[in-house]
């Protein structure tokens, strides 16, 4: 089962099924009781295809086929989705295969961060060529963002981030322990942005001039974003994690999304909303129930960034006197 991703029915000849899950090393079958888990990740250079044929260099996490063998790891944007159960004692082994930088004071040291998770005492950094093992107990269910905080944010901007899901113990099919967080379909949505000029020269680029021109959901921009498939009446869990540098306001048209959790904490009074701000670095969980009525368009119910990042690439050659080609942070929920 493609856990967590709606079946992306091709909406045009160019749409692709986004993100192939890595295999057993990353994801174990869901179990009811806490267990020790080992997760292997490599931080490697790679390439991401943003839309159509636009490719940019990235640094990303990838899962090796065998522990420590990063030659088999492919950087993905975002990194592999990690799923554990509440109570699991997790051993996260990260190998740093980023290139050694030529520019001081950058060191390309990977600094493992998962806000909201308390690591067991020990090192959390790995220099290029080295590795580190970080241990923690996944004590609280929810959606988390794992990333590398190295090189003062440049590594995050290059793509070193992904989503960690902690499932509630004894509450299968729910986001949290409390009622009201049950779901039928689950959709992780890692939000991000890319400035291709930065990605081409991450060590020397002047960050004051950082201007993102690609706006991504799970590493893809419309029309390559994967849709979310659910039948009428089904509860769709939208797990947002913002790996970008800027807040994103996500608007769901024709439906409401009830906010059940923020920053991996279940809300006591979950509000029903249309648009939610997902702050940079934050996570949020909402539940939207698929209506039985028709969507506003044949594509389905639009879910998009109300900060209007809905174009792909620089628009310098786009005449102001014609419509802009749609792109960016847009996807659809459909039956």
């Amino acid at each position, binding site marked *: 089962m493609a856990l967590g991703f709606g079946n992306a029915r091709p909406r045009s000849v160019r749409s692709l099924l986004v993100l192939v899950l890595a295999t057993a090393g990353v994801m174990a079958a869901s179990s009811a009781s806490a267990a020790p888990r080992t997760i292997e990740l490599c931080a490697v250079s790679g390439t991401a295809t943003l839309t159509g044929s636009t490719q940019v260099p990235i640094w990303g996490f990838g899962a090796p086929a065998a522990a420590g063998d990063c030659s088999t790891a492919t950087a993905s944007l975002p990194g592999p989705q990690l799923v554990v159960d509440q109570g699991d004692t997790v051993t996260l082994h990260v190998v740093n295969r980023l290139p050694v930088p030529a520019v001081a004071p950058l060191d390309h040291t990977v600094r493992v961060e998962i806000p909201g998770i308390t690591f067991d005492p020990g090192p959390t950094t790995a220099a290029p060529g080295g590795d580190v093992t970080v241990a923690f107990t996944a004590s609280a269910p929810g959606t988390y963002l794992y990333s590398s905080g190295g090189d003062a944010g440049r590594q995050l901007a290059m793509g070193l981030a992904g989503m960690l899901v902690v499932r509630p113990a004894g509450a299968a099919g729910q986001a949290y322990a409390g009622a009201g967080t049950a779901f039928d379909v689950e959709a992780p949505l890692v939000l991000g942005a890319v400035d291709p000029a930065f990605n081409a020269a991450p060590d020397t680029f002047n960050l004051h001039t950082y201007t993102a021109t690609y706006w991504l959901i799970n590493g893809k921009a419309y029309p390559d974003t994967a849709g979310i498939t659910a039948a009428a009446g089904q509860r769709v869990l939208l797990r947002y994690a913002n790996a970008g540098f800027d807040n994103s*306001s996500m608007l769901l048209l024709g439906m*409401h999304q009830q906010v059940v959790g923020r920053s991996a904490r279940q809300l006591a*009074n979950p509000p029903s909303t*249309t*648009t939610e701000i997902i702050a940079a670095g934050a996570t949020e969980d909402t539940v939207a129930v698929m209506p039985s*009525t028709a969507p506003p368009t044949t594509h389905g119910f639009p879910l998009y960034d109300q900060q*209007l990042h809905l174009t792909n690439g620089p628009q*310098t050659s786009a005449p*102001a*006197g014609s419509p802009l080609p749609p792109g960016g942070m847009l996807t659809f929920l459909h039956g």
Partner: protein
Amino acid sequence: MSSPRIRALLRLGVVAAVAAAAGLAGTTSASAIPAGAPKVGMVCEPGTASAGTRTFNLVANAGYISTPDGNAVYVWSYANADAPDNGHFQEPGPVLCVNQGENVVVNLRNTLPEATSIVFPGQEGAVAASGGSAGLLTTEAAVGNGTVTYRFTAGSPGTYLYESGTDVSKQVEMGLEGALVVRPTGHADYAYDASTRFDPSREYLLLLSDIDPDLHHAVELAYGATPPSPPPGYDVNSLRNRYFSINGREFPDTIQDNGSSLLPNQPYGALVRIQPNSSSNQLPSLIRMINVGALNHPFHPHGNHTRQIAQDGRPLRTPTGGDASTEHFGETIGAGQTQDFLLRWDDTDNFNPANNPYPVAPPNYLNVTFKDNSTWYSGSPYLGYKGTLPTGVTTQNICGEWYFPLHSHALNEFTNYDQGFGGMGTLLRVDPAGGCSAPVASAALVGGTLKSGSVSALSAADTAYYQINPKTTTRTSATNATQTSITVASASGFPTSGTYYVRVDNEVMAVTGGQGTTTWTVGRGQLGTTAATHSSGAAVSALATDWYAGFTGIPAGAQSLKVTYTGKNCATTTGTTCTALTTNVPQQTVRICDWTIAGATGCTAVAGPGAAGWVTLPAPPAQPQGVGSSDVSSTWNLPVNAAQYIGTGSSKGQVRVLVHTQRWTASSPTPFSTWGNLMKIVYDAP
């Protein structure tokens, strides 16, 4: 507010010239708000309702808006195609007000050079579209007067927005946006339910949006009469907003009235004007906020908390339906969100100079300076009081009200193109409890004589009274029971024209001729009395008293005038004790001067040409009222727009209120005197 008008008048020339040059459709004279709409507060476009369906006809068109730094920005928006607007350009679009459960039909016609559409975030279930052609997010209206119709049922009450669903990166930024308000079934004064009840005269809409003038200019050139070659481009990734708006205006334009003639294409003001809550004023005001721009805005009710009761048209509740509202002095409203706030303002300190002064003395006005010699301060730190300001300082303050800025706390947004104290800001104005009030400045007797007291007795409901006797004179000779001509010692104070009644002993006579002279033609034995003989020197009394109170300094544009009069009538015309009146109770009618009737001379008398301007104050309470020897206090509310009751020209700022009291019925007309205790007017300052 007056001082920004001078700059605004200079700008108006720029706007008109640019609009004329662009040759845009739509007139510059038609009003873009319904007749009778309030000058301050949310303005509803009600559409056309019929059998459970409410229909709006909108047209997407282009126009220019005016910014306080003298710029005119090309904007796309929706306009109301129906009368009286007839497509007059407005930014933002009309506030569509519907009732819960209604079927809403929105017909859109497109005159823009690109296809456009409307999406309705927050409306669940189907928004069915007919006509038009399928677009990415919704069905669209084509170029060249293309049309599309949207239908949905307004299922849930709340504050919502509508905006373009086409090429949104450009079109929403270009201004295609508006508000949609759904009122709960049967309760226009609930936001959602009884627990969110508000004062319907204190309902405000703040719709936030942003402008990058470079984007607007590039679109303007590209679609202009002679587009440059190569065509101008614009990279939406380089968006840099320089104007930040509330209801399509930037401060200080945000505090101008709705429908201000200074801003013909930006009809909605954003002044929030409240009075303190109290046991007699329990209901909070409602502030509906919408953010249509692409930026999140940290909005700040400076110096106050506001209580957020809802987001995106859904009240904040616990899972069991309890209250989960929260108070904020800084709350970010995200791009595309709506948030509703209730604002209660309670004066918990009740400082006043008489018996509860501030523990710290205010600075001496000689030691105070004001930037640009201009201020909103009244000169007194006490709510409702005015004080002394240094010479040469201009104050906008009207009656001692307080002002708080209500603004985005991203301070670069509180600017007009980087000039501070502009942009995304408005004012929260707290008027004194009950509204602005003016003291009685003068009193004039137009029918009667002063028994005792002075006009200062009218300033408070206390033990001091302004006491008036009916006018009297005396007969210069004896009267028999049949004569129809009598002479009196003096006619002064009696009407100079028209028939009126006088009493001599127990007989009422009608004066039908000789008014204004000392020889009167009279009809005998009137009103059920019997003609009789009277001795020489007998008192001849009018049967009514007429006096009016004069108020000064009422600002033009003041609204919602309320007149309060407290008084009684006593059976004695002498002495200091009010003797009881239990039968034949005098009839009192309180009137106000309408200066537009017969000009400024219309309110100086109660008979003849000087009497034409008096109009009876409207029920409730109905008049005349029987007022005996106990104080009766009545308050009358005048219609919101009160311009005709405020004098102009040589009577500028004057309001006059007349008290007419008459006592005459059979069979023994007895004397009385009118005792006025309190005469007060309050009003909402402009």
